[in-house]
């Protein structure tokens, strides 16, 4: 079923692009469809991982790797996630726990997750994700390697994580029977740095007033692009975005009237079909110009010390470390992107989403940015009450507009 879905998605997107109906988002979606095809082909070595895993290293070792939350998001976007979430209640998951993770566990129970060769868990961004990976390791009877991501970027902590990543490389080689080719790793890191450089330019364009992007184009972008680091696909996606945004910037000139309200979206987007982005743009002239995770928080990786560079990158992600680090990052984005307001979906069941809600709100208010806290399950559409969400968003935009 999933293989057919990704095959159909890939051919549809490829055909649209070939007919001149391409867009950066279509190129991005095409590569996601291809990743899905590889995951479900039965012909590739697959690893289920945590979000902070070094995907370029795994790509260099020819392992098709993916964080498990991708499957939760994908099931949500196809509208079939409810059955999988429900299934997990039968094995003891609380109905209040994270729907990304419940969907993944349910998919594994129902035979919808391809069997991996091995699993790489990461202690960041959440223990719930690690618990699911442990559950999958037990379910598939496959070996699990856990990367303990330190909280700070001190020399000792970077070395500690770099050592773990070296050990991870040996773990992977032992299972796949293929040693890491140093030339392949250097080539992958070259592509990672190239992708990083281009994405940095893409974000710089998105920061402009008015922004050349629309609310949907860069949704989930930062977190998902990690999967394509070290690959030609990653470079291609980044180049397509840059080319298109440069064209738009040149043609749009500067007309702030086109963009009445600029918004920041905290954490991840709502993954199932919903009217929010259209409502923002069509009825209020409001636009999401930045998502919390759409940022480059790491330096180019030095070929002389690749593992330490990979370690620094994993430690640097905004969800790692103290809440204050996350707040400081959000405040910087708010100022860089000159936003008028922030929307926090407070993903139901997610401690990253709800635990820090009050502190994040105070952090935004400290820099003069109003915040709308929704209480949305970003994966389970059965809990979505459109009228309630719409009223809150409209009231928030009325308030922001009256204060401008």
């Amino acid at each position, binding site marked *: 079923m999933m293989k057919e879905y990704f095959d159909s998605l890939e051919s549809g997107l490829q055909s649209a692009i070939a007919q001149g109906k391409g867009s950066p988002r279509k190129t991005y979606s095409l590569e996601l469809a291809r990743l899905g095809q590889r995951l479900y082909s039965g012909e590739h070595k697959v690893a289920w991982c945590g979000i902070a895993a070094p995907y370029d290293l795994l790509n260099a070792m020819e392992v098709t790797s993916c964080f498990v939350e991708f499957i939760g998001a994908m099931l949500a976007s196809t509208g079939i996630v409810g059955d999988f979430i429900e299934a997990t209640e039968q094995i003891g998951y609380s109905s209040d726990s994270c729907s990304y993770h419940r969907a993944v566990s349910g998919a594994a129970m129902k035979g919808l997750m391809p069997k991996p060769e091995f699993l790489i868990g990461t202690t960041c961004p959440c223990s719930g994700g690690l618990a699911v990976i442990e559950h999958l390791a037990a379910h598939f009877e496959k070996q699990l390697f856990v990367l303990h991501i330190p909280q700070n970027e001190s020399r000792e902590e970077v070395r500690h994580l770099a050592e773990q990543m070296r050990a991870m490389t040996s773990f992977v080689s032992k299972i796949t029977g293929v040693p890491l080719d140093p030339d392949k790793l250097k080539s992958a890191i070259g592509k990672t740095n190239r992708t990083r450089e281009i994405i940095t330019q893409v974000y710089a364009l998105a920061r402009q007033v008015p922004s050349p992007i629309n609310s949907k184009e860069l949704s989930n972008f930062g977190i998902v692009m990690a999967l394509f680091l070290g690959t030609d696909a990653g470079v291609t996606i980044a180049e397509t975005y840059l080319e298109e945004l440069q064209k738009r910037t040149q043609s749009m000139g500067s007309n702030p009237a086109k963009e009445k309200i600029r918004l920041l979206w905290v954490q991840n987007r709502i993954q199932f079909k919903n009217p929010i982005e259209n409502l923002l743009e069509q009825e209020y002239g409001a636009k999401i110009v930045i998502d919390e995770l759409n940022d480059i928080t790491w330096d180019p990786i030095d070929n002389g010390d690749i593992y330490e560079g990979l370690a620094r990158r994993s430690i640097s992600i905004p969800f790692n470390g103290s809440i204050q680090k996350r707040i400081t990052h959000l405040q910087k984005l708010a100022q860089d992107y000159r936003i008028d307001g922030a929307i926090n979906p407070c993903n139901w069941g997610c401690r990253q989403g709800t635990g820090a809600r009050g502190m994040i709100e105070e952090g935004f208010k400290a820099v003069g940015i109003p915040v709308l806290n*929704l*209480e949305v399950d970003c994966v389970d559409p059965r809990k979505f009450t459109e009228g309630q969400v719409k*009223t809150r968003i409209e*009231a928030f935009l009325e*308030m922001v507009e*009256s204060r401008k």
Partner: protein
Amino acid sequence: MFYLGIDIGSLSCDAVLIDHEEAILATAVVPTGARNLEAIARVTENVLHKTGIPKKDVKGIVSTGYGRERVQERIGAVTEITCHARGIAALKPEARVLIDIGGQDSKAILLDAEQKVMDFAMNDKCAAGTGRFLEAMARALQVDIDEMANLDLGAQGGLTISSMCTVFAESEVVSLIADGKPVNEIVQGLNRAIATRTLALVKRIVANPAGLPVAMSGGVAHNAGVVRAISAALGGVAVLVPPQPDTVGALGAALIAKEKCESFRG
């Protein structure tokens, strides 16, 4: 020239008709029921009939409430947060915190000195502490909803009732009745449960509300016992309640209709 505001809530549909000097000419409240188009027609007819003003003389209608997009002849649909803020600014201009408890929504709104909305918080996922909650409790107590308003008087205040869930609270009430607890104690416990939830909403918009004038709107503001409990939860602050708290949103909508018409002309 006349302007009409219509607030289509989950329990009631309210209308306020004002003139060009913002004087309230008529108000009406009818049950929304299952067919909100009929309720809208009924409440409109009601205020027009009371004043004898023909519909053609109404220059603008603004709608609010969950059914705001059902009003066909509107010149605008505005959320209840903005409308309640606008309405209370006209009735109680000193208010800086507005608590609105309606049929299934409760909200706290922080207003600045110009009565603009600075922040707001609403209940989510749950109708505990709203008009529906009170209806369910009145049913369990087998008393009329209006009768409940003063049934707390004389209570010593020893009972605590769940503020988390309408269904659990109802079964708690049934158990307390079975245990022979006095009705006034149960009603006061319920009022405190509503006040606890309301205080949490208020604290979300202002950590320390002490010294800020507080007003209340929405149908639940008719219940003096709930108002007393909220006042106590806020440290004894006097809660300002306008004479017709359930029509504050509709009044705000009417005032916004007037502003919109004037800006079109201007």
